[in-house]
Structure formats: structure tokens, C-alpha cells
């Protein structure tokens, strides 16, 4: 049983393209990448079908899509304010991608959640920290402002703020990976214990609930960090709005 688990937990390489590239070796395609491609293809096809005929007066499908889009704008808008509007599409993509990735184990066909592979969560976390820092850089208006932002709210926070550049993605990546892997292991053990009905019940919690929660937490934290970083820009926008409002009066 232990061997079986180790086998299941490892990241299987499905195929290798035998081109030896210096330092990184031949191109290996992990199982998780294949599953990601499948998810991507499914999302793309679904979106293309659903957005085929958009009308001013929406049909049922369009109404649901609009509801979803409005929901993510509202949801992320709470954390990031007006200046963060341009980051909503990326965060929504991550939310959708992670949600489906975490839950895909339930669908079957021998697919395992890609987020069980730490390399995938590393990729998500890397992109998140890059986005956070780029957004902070933009909002602070150049290098000087960006460097100054590390001394906020006070100078003594400087080392902690610098360390956060590494801590944030690490915690994001490890939390997601750990949770998905943990629920994956538990589900495998339950399947060993009893093959029918029991896994279904537990899968509701470990796959659906935990998977959705982890996807939510990941994008929530990312948007929170972005919101923190772009605060100066939001303040500027608010000040401008107040000015125009008083001018209108």
C-alpha cells in the first residue's frame, strides 16, 4: 500500500522530448501539464461556445456569464479598489483555473489535480508575486517610489517587507500544494478502505469544498497583496474624484 501511495504521489513524466538543452536537460512533460492542457481546452471551448452570440438583451447563458463577470469585478474590487480593475481578468483566470484543477480529481478518467504537483503551484505563485510587485511598481510611479514603498508603514519594517517578496509566493505555493496533496492522500486512503459510497461523501469535502476554498484563498491573498501595493494609486483616484465632485458642486 505504501508503494502504491508513493507511486500515486509522484509526478509521472508522460513523455520526454529528447532534445538536450544545456543546464535543464531534455524536455519532460509531466502528467500535470497534460491535465492542465485538457482543462484549458475545455475552458476555451466552453467560453467560445458561450460567447458566440452576445446580444444587448441577454439570453440565459449570457446572463449567467455576465453575472459571473460582474461577480469577479465586485469581489476583487473590494480588495483592490478602482485602480485594481485591470488585474481582475488575470485573477479571475487563476480562480477559474485553480478551481477546476483542484476539483478535477473527482471527474475521473485517472486525472489527478495538477495542483498536486508542486511545480504547478510554484508557477502560479511566481506569476502572483511578479504581478504584485509590478502593480506596486506602477502604482508608486517608478523605481524611487517603489523602493520607498518598502519602508512603509515605517522604516523599521524594511527587512520584513523585503523578506515578504520571498515569503509571500512561498506561502501561496506551499499552502495550495499542501492542501491539495493532503486531500489527495486522504482520498486515496479512503478509497483503499472502502471503494464505494464512502469516497463520494468525503470527496464532497476534500475535493469540492477544500479545492474551492484553496482556489479562493489563493486569489484572495493575491488580490489583497495587490490592493496593499496599489494603495497610493487608489488614494490618488479617490482624491481626484473628490476634487471633481466638489468642483461639480
Amino acid at each position: 500500500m505504501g508503494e502504491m501511495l508513493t507511486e500515486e504521489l509522484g509526478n509521472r513524466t508522460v513523455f520526454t522530448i529528447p532534445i538536450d538543452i544545456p543546464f535543464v536537460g531534455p524536455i519532460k512533460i509531466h502528467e500535470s501539464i497534460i491535465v492542465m492542457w485538457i482543462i484549458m481546452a475545455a475552458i476555451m471551448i466552453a467560453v467560445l461556445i458561450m460567447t458566440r452570440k452576445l446580444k444587448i438583451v441577454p439570453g440565459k447563458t449570457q446572463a449567467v456569464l455576465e453575472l459571473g463577470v460582474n461577480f469577479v469585478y465586485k469581489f476583487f474590487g473590494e480588495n483592490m479598489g478602482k485602480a485594481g480593475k485591470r488585474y481582475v481578468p488575470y485573477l479571475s483566470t487563476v480562480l477559474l483555473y485553480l478551481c477546476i484543477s483542484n476539483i478535477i480529481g473527482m471527474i475521473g478518467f485517472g486525472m489527478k489535480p495538477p495542483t498536486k504537483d508542486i511545480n504547478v503551484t510554484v508557477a502560479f505563485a511566481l506569476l502572483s508575486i511578479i504581478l504584485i510587485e509590478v502593480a506596486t511598481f506602477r502604482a508608486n510611479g517608478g523605481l524611487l517610489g517603489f523602493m520607498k514603498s518598502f519602508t512603509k508603514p515605517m522604516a523599521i519594517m524594511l527587512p520584513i517587507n523585503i523578506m515578504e517578496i520571498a515569503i509571500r509566493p512561498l506561502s501561496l505555493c506551499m499552502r495550495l500544494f499542501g492542501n491539495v496533496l493532503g486531500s489527495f492522500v486522504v482520498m486515496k486512503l479512503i478509497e483503499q478502505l472502502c471503494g464505494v459510497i464512502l469516497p463520494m461523501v468525503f470527496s464532497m469535502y476534500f475535493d469540492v469544498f477544500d479545492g474551492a476554498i484553496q482556489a479562493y484563498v489563493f486569489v484572495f491573498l493575491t488580490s489583497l497583496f495587490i490592493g496593499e501595493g496599489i494603495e497610493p494609486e487608489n488614494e490618488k483616484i479617490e482624491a481626484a474624484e473628490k476634487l471633481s465632485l466638489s468642483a461639480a458642486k
Partner: protein
Amino acid sequence: MLEFDFWTILFSIINILVLFLFLKKFLFGRINAILEKRVSVVQDEMDKAKEEAQKAEKIRADYEASISGAREEAKKIIQDAQKTANAQSAAITQQAQEEANRIVESTRQELQLERERSVASAQNEIVSLAMEAAEKVLGREMADKDNRAIVDAFLKEEEEA
């Protein structure tokens, strides 16, 4: 379990970015475009409706003004007619009154005249009767003219007494 692999990280990043760009173009781009279009359409419709309402309001005001003008005119016409009718009726009544007065007056005069005439003839009759009676009593003819004067004087005395 924890072995890092450059290729998987790279491919994952590419996957995420590709999906992001795809969704940005085909989901958010399209949905936001249609939402904006709807906002502009609704705005247009509302502007148009406001314009129409203003137009209708103007027409209503015009209509009301014309109606009230007509009503005033009608009132004036009725008042004029009433005044004319009143004046005419007063004139007719007055004329009738005058006519009646005149008729009553002339009738009264005629009656008076008639009475005087009858009184005079009665006196004459009485005088004749009295003279006849006296003739018979005296047995002789009196000078008619003198006697008549005497009787008249007597009658006058009687009247005065």
C-alpha cells in the same frame, strides 16, 4: 513528491498566461464590450424617452391653453347673449306695461265721459218731469225757458244743501 522540474514550471506559466490572454480577449473583452454597449443603448433610450416626454408636455400645455381660451370665449358669448336677452325682455315688459296703462287710462276717461253724459241726460229728464208735474199742478203753461231756469236754480240749491 518535492522534486522541482524546470520544464513543468515553465509549461505551467505558459499555460496560465495563454489561458489568461484567451479569457481576457474572448470572455472579458466580449462581455465588457456588450455591457458597455448596453449601457450606451439604455442611455440613448432614456435620453430619447426624456425628449419625448418633454415634447408631450409641451403639446399638452398648448392644448390646455387653447381649451381654456375656448372656454373663456364661450363664457363671454353666453354672457353677451344673456345681457341682450335681459335688455330685450326689459324693453318688451316696459312696452307692454305702457300699453296696458294707456288702455286703462282711456277706458277710465271713456267711462267718466259716459257717466257725465248719463248724469246730464238724467237731469234733463228730471227737469222735464218736474215741469210737467208743475204744469199739471198749476194748470197753466209756464214760460218754458224761464221756468226751466227757475227749476235748475232750485235743483242746484238742493244739490248744495
